[in-house]
């Protein structure tokens, strides 16, 4: 007796659904949503996702199947960066992207720490917006990402 799985049409667009930075205590340090999620539902989603990632052991891989999409997470000291991606997106590529993001932050802040991110949230948002726009990668070159921000910093200093 044969069983046929429904043929998943590629209307399931490959994209990033959201990006979260959460610390070990579960406090959100940064959240960016690229797909419509009801504002009321966001805290619950964040809590759930974070619980899933924080409970992973060291031997487990960085990809988690969550509901009907996937999570890619990486840990940097006390911070977890969790990216929710659609089923059809390439996990390894996003894994690299997360590291790229951290490298950019590192370059700007000089050995970035959790406090840097907390107290400069607006800048981190600017950087992120230069890298990812409505769920797709915009730019990955470090210098080009930071150029607008550095220019704006210069402008602010001048005032």
């Amino acid at each position, binding site marked *: 007796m044969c069983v*046929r799985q429904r043929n998943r049409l590629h209307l399931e667009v490959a994209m990033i659904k959201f990006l979260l930075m959460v610390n070990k205590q579960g406090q959100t340090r940064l959240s960016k949503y690229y797909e419509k999620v009801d504002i009321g539902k966001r805290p619950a989603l964040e809590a759930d996702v974070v619980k899933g990632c924080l409970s992973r052991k060291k031997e487990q891989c960085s990809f988690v199947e969550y509901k*009907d999409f996937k999570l890619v997470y990486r840990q940097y000291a006390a911070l977890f960066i969790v990216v929710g991606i659609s089923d059809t997106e390439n996990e390894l590529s996003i894994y690299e992207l997360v590291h790229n993001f951290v490298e950019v932050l590192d370059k700007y802040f000089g050995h970035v720490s959790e406090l840097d991110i907390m107290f400069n949230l607006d800048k981190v948002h600017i950087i992120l917006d230069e890298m990812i726009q409505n769920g797709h990668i*915009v730019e990955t070159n470090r210098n080009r990402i930071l150029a607008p921000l550095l220019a704006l910093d210069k402008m602010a200093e001048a005032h």
Partner: protein
Amino acid sequence: MVMNISMSCSTRAMSPSVRLQEMIRVIRGARTQGEERGVIQRECAAIRAQFRQADNGTRSHNLAKLLYVHMLGYPAHFGQMECVRLIASPRYNEKRVGYLGAMMLLDEKQDASLLITNSIKNDLSHNSQYVQSLALCTLACMGSAEMCRDLAPEIDRLLRASNSYIKKKAALCAVHIVRKVPDLGELFTPAARSLLCEKNHGVLHGAVVLITELCERNPDTLEQFRKVVPELVQIMKGLVMSGYSPEHNVAGISDPFLQVRILRLLRILGRNNDTASDAMNDLLAQVATNTDSSKTAGSAVLYETVLTVMDIKSESGLRVLAVNILGRFLLNNDRNIRYISMTSLQKIVQTDHNAVQRHRGTIVDCLKDQDASVKRRALELSLALVSAVNIRSLMKELLLFLSSCPPELRAHTTSGIFNAAERYAPSQRWHIDTILHVLTTAGGDVRDETVPNLIQLITTATELHCYTVHKLYRALITDISVQSLVQVACWCIGEYGDLLLRGECEETEPVQVTEDDVLDALETVLQSHMSSPATRGFALTATMKLSTRITHNVDRIRSIVSIYGSCIDVELQQRAVEYNALFKKYDHMRAAVLERMPVIDKSSPGHTNGESAGGIKELEQTKLTQEVVLPKDPGNQVCDLLDLLGGSGEPVPSSGLSHTVPGPATSTSGGDLLDLLGGLDVSPAPPSVKVYEKNGVTLKLQTDSQTDTGMTITLTATNSTDGDITSLTLQAAVPKSVQLQMKAPSGDVIPARGLGLVTQTVLLNNPNKVSLKMRVRVCYSSQGAVCQDTVQIDSFPSPAW
């Protein structure tokens, strides 16, 4: 050190950060959740008051604070109008915070979002590219269909004539517009095409994403873009073969992100199209061989390449190359890569079975991996790779795995092993041995049908009866905690106990036991608190059956049986009383009644009379009455008993009632008997829902059992026409993350005029707890015509208990 950096940042920073930093410090100072809430409420009240006042230069600070508070999860909707005002401000700081606020607080449903359309329009033609980019970013994030329609021509203009910084953002903005208003795709097609000539990687990336989106939405556009395959191939070649390029280098790979995107676009263009697939064949081979896979970046590119190769019409050499890449991944130290490899192999194991078989060794080794998800994948792959050729060696590995596998995988493993054993067992003895091994190792995690299935298997292996009963006896005296094993053992001993006592066996070392030893074993089961009621029933019946197979100790059996005549367990009491009656009044019939059973036919009607009439107790009562009716010579002696129990007059086919074990299937004739046995309560069948009714064929669905992560349902087909329905097949499809297992149907012929039915059990495993839906396709032949229909099932009835 950290504090210094923050301080230096704050002096350089734009003004909003200072006040925001103060507030953050205060919030962090709060020691309890309540204190934090208090602080935030005070801040929000202050912010609200300030919003009401006229512009005093602090608006952007306040909005920034509000956004922070929003991120922590507190309500911030009163800031929406403030966003609108700030966006319209001429100062960059204020615009920046306003747009950020719009992205976080506004969505289509808010009225305020319409108000910013004009601002966005103006800002799109601002002379500062940073302001333009703010507008683009926000439009791409939360633009409604109205706004998109309004501003699409602007975006198109930006796509053609601006600098690369703006072009790349405009491209992604166009992606959003196309998603909202698919018709506008045609507007962007020419611009997208020309963007492919750009050198800037950011723009290229955006262009590729835009083209991908356009092609996925519109098959005509897809056709058009097939012509750019050579161009894409050139770009890829450039990336792969170029030397070190510092601008885009990630771990030795030149812009892996762009490579991945292009590969995906090629996949879409090459799908189902020979010409396009041919054009990219060489390139894919080149990428596969020249990409360094030692770091994740390279592996990401290779992974995408494999996916593309498998999806387009590639030549077989290329496919083998792709599978080999996956095989290499399996040996990689990085567990992420091993996991990816497993997932991909699983997708292609059906279509490229032979290629994957070559890596069977590595896959089986992954059963020992530390990561639970890798283990699970390895298990599913191993089960998919089982064939007649490798069954013996593979089963050894699987059994080894079973002894140490994580508890959540055990049920799946056992059922997988059973299926594989059933399909490819090289001999009956091997089959029985395997099932016994599984029961000893993981008997608590097997499905209910295992016991009747095993019994059926044992009866068919007629030459092995002696061997089997010896093995089971040995297992029984070692350990009586595994119920399924004990049940089968009791049944066997009851049935073939004489072979045990004979003290000789060809296949294995015979035991030297006395009748007392055997009865001791059964009594231990009867009296043990570990035995479930069902198991005790088995043991009692087995003891009774032995009365015709042993010679000396019949009295002991008589006394056991009479003791249980006053047992508290009603089921056991019932049996004991009836067995007593068999001893006393109907002794002349005893031998005939307890005769050796005939071989059970697997797909008997006994399986199919599908209404599970409630609890096990019911089934056991039917069991007894079935046994009584069972013997082949329905001589006059038996008729008296039938009359006593008020049974149906017609002779029930022996194969139908040979299901003497309490399992989920029962016989409806049992129902009649039960009614006449003094109005016993037959609990109502679980509610069944009619899901299909056409041409006289009715398909009903009932839920047998349901847990958090799965359910078992039974589909029952009946036929009210005058002719038999033949060649009935049921196929099912479920959402992607749900696993489906269809058991063998009871048959494929539904007798006419409702005289019989066909059932099929379906097991659904839903580990991700998505909403369960199912599509069932029904095919059958009725009066010479072939009919086929599909039904969608969106909700399932609740189980009865």
